[in-house]
């Protein structure tokens, strides 16, 4: 059974998430300054996708922001998978618990 380095995979997830989110946010803020809007308040999560189709700068920024916010959570998922593959059962349970707590926060955000 391959011994997967949890920290190496976690590092890759963090890098990809941060870089991707910043690129998207920079695109969004460039569009915003090209055509500033009155309100810069973040859109409700359910409204982001419909507004993306119209190239709404705030929606683009918010998409990048949510990818950034999700990045540590995806990192935790990667540690769960890595630990499961390494058959390290004790450290599958702990990150699952953290993920449940983050999911509670996300649930409040998505359905507010």
């Amino acid at each position, binding site marked *: 059974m391959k011994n997967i380095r*949890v*920290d*190496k995979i*976690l*590092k890759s997830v*963090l*890098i990809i*998430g*941060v870089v991707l*989110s*910043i690129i998207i*946010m*920079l695109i*969004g*803020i460039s569009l*915003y300054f090209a055509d*500033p809007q009155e309100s*810069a*308040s*973040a*859109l*409700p*999560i359910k409204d982001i996708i419909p507004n993306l189709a119209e190239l709404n700068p*705030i929606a683009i*920024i*918010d998409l*990048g*922001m949510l990818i*950034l*916010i999700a*990045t*540590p*959570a995806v*990192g*935790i998922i990667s*540690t769960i998978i890595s630990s499961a593959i390494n058959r390290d059962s*004790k*450290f599958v349970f*702990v*990150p699952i*618990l*953290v993920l449940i*707590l*983050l999911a*509670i*926060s*996300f649930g*409040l*955000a*998505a*359905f*507010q």
Partner: protein
Amino acid sequence: MEIAHVVLVLVFTFLAGFFGSMLGLGGGFIMVPALTLGLGLDIKIAISASLIGIIANSSTASTTYLREGLTNVRLGLVLETATALGAIIGALIAVLIHSQTLAFIFALVLIILAVFMYLRPEEIHAAKEGKEKKSEDAYLDLSDEYYDNGLDEKVKYEVKSVEKGLAASFVAGNLAGIMGVGGGIVKVPTMNLLMNVPMKVAIATSTFMLGITAVAGALIYYSFGYVDSVITVLVIIGIIVGAKSGSLLARKIETGVLKKGFIVVLIIISALMFMKALGVYPI
């Protein structure tokens, strides 16, 4: 948004990241008051921007520590069970109370922080190596080792007092959620002084934890509509650039000097935040 405001946000958050990285902090203690006092932003919007900025900063800095093998991911995740819960509760309290009350709490914590930094005991830079694993920690097996470049050797350490660590982590999470800070000011000394974790590992592990803690709090603020997308992006840019710059200069400046300066700044900011809370601050 006016150009002057854009520049001010970038300058404030650059300084927050710059000095924060030198002191091993996320920068929220500088960022939130700077945005609130300097730009007149609602403190809840400043806190949400700070939390999201901390996610970016923490994730970026963590990649370096992970590459160097300093982060104890297992320990971080165990402590995060308490921190994340604390952050959710803290954030819910913050969004539901009046902004002026929040400013008052912030000012009070800054004073306590200043006193704590002044009185803080000496850090432990190399933990005592345990001869055998203690039965209380054997189940979780959080002990680890890292390569210390300064000593040019591998250092093993045994993590102790996990229960105390969890309790302190819950408090750190509350701070994070209520004030928009990462909580590192509690986590690092907890790991180092209570849990026998060497300082380099404590900082690296705390940095890893900051992002997860901030996620828990940030989503609560997002759900209650306290995120300004444009300001948040500017905060992210400023804090990442500032933190990178600060980490490059950190080795050249004596920590004691920085700490004394930071304590003075904390006291001044605390006084201004009290004024804000009392409604007598001009902006």
